[in-house]
């Protein structure tokens, strides 16, 4: 390729396509600038900065939604034609899956699905913060800048196709999160939580980048999809063994990268920051971190894991080891998360441990995926793992947000977050009753009982683990532990529900009144949990997840 050809290709083919796909993220960037300008020009006295943020995020959401629908329907949806045209979507751009930005990011239904979820979640959390008023009028632009900045990082994570982008995405979503955890800067707990989070987070990020450097050096590339094939090429016919330095160096690199991702997912040996950070941070930030940063990290883990598939003996052994180690981590996370949650007295801390446990359930899907890949399984089975994970994350988004939203609203009324403060909550006014009911639904779904969305997510993941068990028996052990854990988890969720519905309030005279808007908001985000469990939406989501996952494996 000659120089003009290269320039032509980059300028006229790659860049327009990239910008078209990247437009929602660019809208978010513009929103950040707009927020700062509003503050600088002192317009925030005329209208709140939160509305600027919400408007920008909504625009980005519409953009990703248009992309999603375009990909799903192939651009042939007459009702949305104007929308497609507004965002300039074309068949060669958004319509075609593949790499963009000269191979740094990859555009496929999987990435679009996760980006859609993330922006939707950002809209919901921003609505929540507007209702609870956690960043006040003066600090609004700082808070939303951090939140949107972190989200841009997460959206990059969904499409990361390059080890540099992987590291960069992790940094971009972590560093603003550190600041967000410490956002209540006058409070001792908040600053302590932020300190712990940043100290551990920075350390693990360093370890991770060392792993990236090893991996990149051994395999001679930064491109994630090439990793597996290069490893296969280098190993040739040699089996995977601990005496082969190339294999060990690669495994070491993978291990260190997975450590970095496991930290973001708060999986067990690297979970210690999670309860502290969630307890110290405000409930809104806790909700944001518990869902968004996890979803992004799972997207990264899936991409990273999928790079190592192949038909050679060495790479299959590598996959198996990878899968089983993730299985062990999954067992540990589920068990420890659920057991530790039982003794908690602070509801945010309890939810943090519940998050750890749920990360354990979700990583089970990836463990199963890797084990399946090591046995040259049917792509349909492998796709089922990712499908289950996606379904789970979609439901988890709503149920965790509901739980944290309830914590935030109750805190605004009672100024307390310990479980005792919830005693007799259901005796309050009608909106409070609605709130309690929503909490019930969210918790039942978090446990994974049948009519709710959470059940079907968990069911899908367990089913794929069952299938993977036929490749290696260890997955059956993981599955059994997962089942047991579901039973454990029932108790501590019930403990909270008992406080809410059965125990009498300590102070009978004062009942908690939740403002109408807040109740309506919680009801709105609870509805999808029900809908995803027992309506046609569920079938829709399953089908979408199925198509998306199948695309990764065809």
């Amino acid at each position, binding site marked *: 390729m000659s120089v003009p050809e290269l320039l032509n290709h980059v300028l006229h083919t790659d860049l327009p396509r990239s910008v078209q796909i990247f437009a929602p993220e660019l809208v978010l960037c513009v929103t950040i600038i707009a927020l700062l300008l509003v503050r600088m020009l002192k317009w925030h006295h005329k209208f709140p900065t939160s509305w600027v943020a919400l408007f920008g995020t909504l625009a980005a959401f519409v953009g990703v939604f248009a992309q999603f629908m375009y990909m799903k329907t192939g651009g042939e949806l007459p009702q949305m034609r104007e929308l497609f045209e507004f965002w300039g979507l074309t068949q060669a751009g958004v319509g075609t899956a593949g790499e963009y930005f000269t191979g740094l990011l990859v555009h496929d239904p999987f990435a679009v699905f996760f980006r859609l979820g993330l922006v939707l979640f950002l809209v919901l959390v921003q609505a929540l913060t507007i209702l609870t008023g956690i960043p006040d009028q003066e600090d609004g632009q700082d808070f939303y800048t951090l939140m949107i900045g972190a989200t841009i990082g997460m959206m990059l994570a969904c499409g990361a196709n390059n*080890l*540099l982008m992987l*590291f*960069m995405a992790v*940094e971009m979503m972590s*560093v*603003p999160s*550190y*600041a967000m955890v*410490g956002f209540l*800067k*006058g*409070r*001792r*707990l908040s*600053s*302590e*939580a*932020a*300190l*712990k989070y*940043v*100290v551990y987070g*920075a*350390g693990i*990020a*360093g*370890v991770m*980048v*060392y792993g*990236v*450097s*090893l991996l*990149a*050096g*051994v395999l*001679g*590339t*930064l491109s994630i999809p090439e990793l597996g094939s290069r490893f296969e090429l280098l190993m040739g016919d040699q089996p995977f063994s601990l005496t082969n330095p190339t294999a060990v160096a690669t495994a070491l690199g993978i291990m260190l990268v997975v450590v970095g991702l496991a930290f973001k997912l708060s999986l067990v040996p690297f979970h210690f920051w999670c*309860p*502290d950070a969630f*307890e*110290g941070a405000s409930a809104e930030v806790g909700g944001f971190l518990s869902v968004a940063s996890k979803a992004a990290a799972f997207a990264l883990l899936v991409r990273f894991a999928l790079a190592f598939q192949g038909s050679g003996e060495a790479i299959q052994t590598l996959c198996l080891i990878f899968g089983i180690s993730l299985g062990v981590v999954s067992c540990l996370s589920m068990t420890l998360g659920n057991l*530790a949650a039982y*003794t*908690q*007295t*602070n509801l945010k*801390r309890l939810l943090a441990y519940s998050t750890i446990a749920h990360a354990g359930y979700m990583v089970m899907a990836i463990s199963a995926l890797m084990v399946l890949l090591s046995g040259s399984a049917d792509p349909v089975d492998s796709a089922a793992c990712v499908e289950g994970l996606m379904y789970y994350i979609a439901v988890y988004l709503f149920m965790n947000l509901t739980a944290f939203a309830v914590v935030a609203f109750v805190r605004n009324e009672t100024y307390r977050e310990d479980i005792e403060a919830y005693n007799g909550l259901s005796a309050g006014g009608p909106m409070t009753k609605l709130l309690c009911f929503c909490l019930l639904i969210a918790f039942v779904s978090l446990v994974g009982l049948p009519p709710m969305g959470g059940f079907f997510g968990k069911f899908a993941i367990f089913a794929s683990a069952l299938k993977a068990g036929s490749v290696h028996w260890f997955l059956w052990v993981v599955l059994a532990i997962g089942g047991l854990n579901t039973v454990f988890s029932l108790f501590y969720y019930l403990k909270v529900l008992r406080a809410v519905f059965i125990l009498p309030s300590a102070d009978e005279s004062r009942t908690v009144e939740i403002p109408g808007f807040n109740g309506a908001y919680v009801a709105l985000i609870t509805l999808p949990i029900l809908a995803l469990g027992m309506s046609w939406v569920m079938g829709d989501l399953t089908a979408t997840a199925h198509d998306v996952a199948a695309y990764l494996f065809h």
Partner: protein
Amino acid sequence: MDPVGLSGYLTVGAVLFVCGVICMATKRNAVGVLMGVELVLNGANINFVAFSRHTALGLDGQIASLFVIVLAAAEAAVALAIVLNFYNNHLTIDVDRAVELKG
């Protein structure tokens, strides 16, 4: 190729990495821990640049190390702001004295 070879550089990188990890594990001063982080990142950077010279990685390694430097600077800025904030609230930056969050 230069006579030192790749392993010399990788050794330096590994020593920096391990010293950084030891530093993170043993220091109680939050700023001390951050210095450990910087060492770890530099260990990785030496790897990147050495690989970029000697292996198939090529210029990508150098660019990766550039971004690592920039991101590390950003991280250090936020970390220090958090440390200052912690100091304002607790009058210490001893990590071991951050014990109010327990459970």
